[in-house]
């Protein structure tokens, strides 16, 4: 039952309960890492091979001098133009019938080129299995016509799931609503980046605060192919010319 699905994560509704993280780990049988205890409530740390959802906590000072949190449940963006998929040499990374990006565990050989490519620090290397792993968009649940575990568990509907076109409409309406209420800092992320993400976010600060590259930094690895090879070619020509000159000269002193 092919369809184009998407997440819409409305960070203004996130209460930082981490139910999404727990549901994700439960469903996908991810043991997780030992918790990290630092200054804040974030003891997950980052997205990686064990954490396919990560609730970020960002402290900020309010206009009245108080402290408030920006919270966001981060996840793989399932980019329309996916950097990981672009570089993967084994074709382990595929686009599914749901238009999501999926690493086939039976094909991946753990070269980690996708990790070097992903601009959202999503993919991690799993030492136990020797594979690159990330959010599957609950591919198995989608095939069974179920919604992803994180969206199912979210108690405030901060994480919404549905057809991508519907999610875009919902996101646009919510942005208009918040702006209408005077929240000028509200903005949408993911409608333009990488050909459009399959995980849209409503943010209340600049993308880089949440570890998301701003539009001008959201670029594909392949941008460096032509100029990288061109520089190499010019060097090859210069090197060969130099060697030819050196080798054609008469021998050194006997």
């Amino acid at each position, binding site marked *: 039952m092919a369809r184009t699905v998407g997440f819409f994560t409305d960070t203004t509704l996130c209460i930082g309960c981490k139910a999404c993280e727990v549901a994700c780990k439960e469903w996908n049988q991810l043991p997780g890492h030992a918790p990290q205890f630092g200054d804040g409530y974030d003891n997950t740390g*980052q997205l990686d091979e064990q954490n396919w959802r990560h609730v970020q906590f960002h402290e900020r000072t309010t206009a009245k001098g108080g402290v408030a949190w920006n919270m966001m449940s981060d996840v793989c963006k399932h980019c329309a133009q996916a950097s990981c998929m*672009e*570089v*993967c*040499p*084994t*074709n382990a990374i595929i686009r599914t019938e749901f238009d999501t990006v999926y690493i*086939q565990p*039976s*094909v*991946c*050989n*753990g*070269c*980690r080129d996708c*990790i*070097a*490519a*992903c601009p*959202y*620090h*999503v993919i*991690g*290397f799993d030492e136990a*299995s*020797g*594979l*690159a792993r990330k959010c599957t968009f609950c591919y198995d649940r989608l095939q069974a016509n179920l919604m992803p575990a994180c969206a199912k568990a979210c108690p405030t509907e901060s994480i919404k799931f549905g057809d991508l076109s519907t999610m875009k409409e919902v996101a646009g309406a919510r942005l208009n609503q918040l702006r209408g209420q005077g929240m000028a800092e509200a903005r949408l992320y993911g409608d333009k980046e990488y050909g459009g993400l399959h995980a849209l976010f409503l943010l209340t600060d600049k993308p880089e605060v949440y570890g*998301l*590259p*701003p539009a001008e*930094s959201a*670029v594909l*690895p*392949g941008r*460096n*192919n032509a*100029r*990288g*090879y061109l*520089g*190499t070619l*010019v*060097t*090859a020509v*210069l*090197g*060969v010319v*130099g*060697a*030819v*000159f*050196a*080798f*054609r*000269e008469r*021998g*050194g*002193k*006997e």
Partner: protein
Amino acid sequence: MIEHFVTAPQWEWYIVWYFFLGGIAGGIYALGAILRLMGDERDAPIARLAFLLCLPILVLCPILLTLDLGRPLRFWHMMIDSRTFTINFKYWSPMSVGVWVLLIFGVFALVSFLEALANLRTGRAPFLSGGLGRAFVTVGAVFGLFLAGYTGVLLSVSNQPVWSDTWALGALFLASGLSVAAATLSLASRLGRHERSAEAKLTRADRYFIVLELALLIVFFVSLGAAGSRFLAPHWMALWAVVLIGTLVPLALHFSSERRTPAMLAAALTLAGGLALRIVVVFGAQM
């Protein structure tokens, strides 16, 4: 300047050594080919030595790459789609291209190695000496040069800081690869007893390569701009110092003396500098 929000791929020592040995193997084949095509009869033993050295060094490359995989027994997934059993080749993915180049260059290296071995044992003229043979080593040299340089492009085609912030890494690795190849050949030649004239030619060629490498080091840092600031930490500065010593001192020695000991010191320093370059570029961007 692009802001990066990436995870490091944990490419470490296997990859550093692959980049280093791949540079030597590719560069040494190219030098052997140019010596054979452009040199005189006194250069033939060194050209043969280049082909004799290339294969044993090259053989280590796929071993290192396979060991680096999370699933080494699936190395063949790089070439064959394991679900459809069709060929896997993505010209826009340097890792995919590199695997094929390694394989194809391996055939050239093997044939040239066998020829050089036969020539060494029987003393007969190389069977690749005719027009076809010249074409063969020329094509082999192109693949060799590609192998020595594409590793830098592989790093650049990512979203990692430093690696993807410059277009000069492929060029820099190739220039360094030619230099370390000349050093390896020079070292091996002087350990044996070869023609002095050919060794002098290698020294002259290495002068070009080192100047090229120094120019590309400048281009590399200029192209990096502010992204190069992560190399300011003392341990990276120490490695850059080794890179500089491994280029400037050999260059000075190449101009000042053609005696055996300074030449061998120059070669050893060049090798140390070439290795340090790859260590600092590979690890420096990931930490």
